[in-house]
């Protein structure tokens, strides 16, 4: 970090997402490390909470709009907004602007925020154009394409490209990597049996790859799949891709017991 670039560093606002904030802080730290290693200045505004998607997908646009307003105000002054989740990034990028149909000023601010919002791996590859070097992860992994990352944010090759730079890692594609895992936010608690059938199909598909680790870029999907893998007694480890890319995959995997420290 001794070399200072001639221009001001790119200032990134990290929207950690509520699931990362509440359940898995190391995804936030890993995301920040990846961005800092790539030369960005990273800020984590305290005024962030949830992106508002649970309300939005339940048809509660008034609450979604109130939350969106707070998020826009907290993040609009950064050069970029980076989100370690395709789903929450998709909410900021594709759904915020439509929430302000009768408020041209806020709609314009929402569009401006949308224009600089990126999913983490897409930002690293497409905007910063960085490669991963000097990181190792011994083992075979498989990658789940979360629906919003894939279909709203166009994330497919970027995580694979980054994983290709990780020493010792081999990627085994699952046949149904693009099929929904059955999480769907509130869907999984509203329709638990249907969600259960979907995640079971997903777990079978993951097991078929023989990979020891399942990675993805969305914590909601990962918690759903980890939860079912554990319940079925399957030892596949589950992690957010940022943990592996940042070389921070040494702690317990998602839902795994804490390791005893010496």
């Amino acid at each position, binding site marked *: 970090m001794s070399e200072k670039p001639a221009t001001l560093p790119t200032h990134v606002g990290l929207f950690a997402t509520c699931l990362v904030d509440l359940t898995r802080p190391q995804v936030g730290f890993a995301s920040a490390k990846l961005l800092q290693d790539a030369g960005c200045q990273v*800020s984590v505004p305290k005024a962030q909470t949830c992106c508002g998607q649970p309300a939005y997908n339940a048809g509660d*646009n008034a609450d979604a709009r109130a939350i969106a307003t707070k998020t826009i105000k907290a993040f609009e002054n950064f050069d970029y907004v980076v989100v370690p989740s395709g789903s929450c990034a998709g909410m900021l990028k594709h759904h915020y602007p439509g929430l302000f149909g009768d408020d041209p000023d806020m709609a314009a601010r929402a569009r401006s925020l949308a224009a600089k919002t990126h999913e983490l791996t897409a930002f690293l590859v497409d905007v910063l154009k960085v490669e991963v070097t000097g990181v190792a992860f011994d083992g075979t992994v498989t990658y789940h394409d979360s629906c919003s990352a894939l*279909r709203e944010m166009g994330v497919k090759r970027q995580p694979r490209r980054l994983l290709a730079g990780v020493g010792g890692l081999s990627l085994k594609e699952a046949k149904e990597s693009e099929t929904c895992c059955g999480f769907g936010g509130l869907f999984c608690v509203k329709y638990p049996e249907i969600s259960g059938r979907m995640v079971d199909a997903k777990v079978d598909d993951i097991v078929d790859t023989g990979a020891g680790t399942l990675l993805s870029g969305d914590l909601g999907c990962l918690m759903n799949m980890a939860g079912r893998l554990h319940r079925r007694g399957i030892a596949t480890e589950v992690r957010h891709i940022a943990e592996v890319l940042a070389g921070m995959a040494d702690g317990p995997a998602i839902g795994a017991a804490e390791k005893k420290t010496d």
Partner: protein
Amino acid sequence: MESTAANFKENALGALGDARLRDALDKLSGGFPENRRKAAERLPEFEALRDQARDIKHHVLENLDHYLEAFEARVVEAGGTVHWCRTAAEARTTILRLCKQAGAKTVTKSKSMIGEEIAINEHLEHHGVEPVETDLGEYIIQLRREPPSHIIAPAIHLSKEQIADTFREKHRDLLADRPLEEPRALLEEARGILREKFVAADVGLTGANMLIAETGSTVLVTNEGNADLTYSLPRVHIVLASLEKIVPTLEDATTILRVLARSATGQEMSVYNTFCTGPKRPGDLDGPEEFHVVLLDNGRTDMLGGEFHDMLRCIRCGACLNHCPIYKSVGGHAYGWVYSGPMGAVLIPNLIGMENAHDLPNASTLCGKCEEVCPVRIPLPRMLRAWRKRQFEAQNTSKAARAGLRFWAFFAGQPWLYRIFANLAVGALHKLSRGRGRFRRMAFLGGWTTLRDLPAPAGKTFISQWHGKKPSESGHE
């Protein structure tokens, strides 16, 4: 038919417990989606054709009155008649009247989803006219008195053993020792019965995949050829179609045919693509003497210009069903009415009322696969959300769900309060997990923990740790 869409949850639970249905749905998953993918790959201009198909349908919906009147004028010129029907009841009455005028005892039918929508078979039966379905799948479910479970493969939910049992029960002349193990044998058994029905029918009732304004033609797509025998052998041909089936020209119809079969089954073209224009002309060797088009609205013009306008582009290919992880989990009957899958979840509330189909727009993860494969690029997830918004505004969302959302939204809107409670909650949960990393049970989250463990929080929130650790980098708050 009577809708059971209001009982979606119960229907779905029943379906999930049905091992034979699961086998059938597994076969579907392995077939149509893979075939569609290959068909799309073989045709470099497939994506461009989808855009064209979308634009054709979009243009029609913007100018629907013009094309409908042009279509009627061409039908009349060709010697046919168009019957405009606002409601399902009007269409039923019109069809029955035409059958009675023809002195019909039996009516052969080729598969028509609009026929299912208006429950025409029950109506004809009730008035002493025997309807005979001639599409194999539709024939099977007619014998079983079931609704279709898929818009292009109506009997996809059945195994061949179940079909053999149905034939043995319903075909009185079927010899007990006749083998029916192979699909071929089932087909021949049905064909033997249907041949006689084709010849004996007084009226042929078909649907239409498209109506062509330029020529007054109706377009029928099948893989079995049954529609051709249905329309050409009886003295009277009745076409039953909803009004959004219109396309401007023959050229437009061929564009849509090119995406239709590829999206539906992965075929480049369906086996039979039949264009019917008016009754038999002088010098024609065969064809019906009368040609009627029953043009049905049934709520569709109410959708024009509104949030569900784009749904009227649908060409009923079934791709959204074939690719939907919910459909593939519960099958078509769980949706409780004639349509199913994502297109059904958007359309059914429009046709039978939101209050009678509350779960349908909610039972989706909004994964977006349906929109990805839709040949006319209908934004199905956006419309599922539009229904949810209407339900929320009409206070049809459950009290518990509303209270939960308000609670969450209140905290999400007050970051400082959120921080305090978040840290208290994750700290408590972390202690409660005692280092095991997950929970097997959790109050209020039974929906989650019945089938899954719940990963435990790490003990401190990311934001408190970040700002605890790095006060110097906490700018821009």
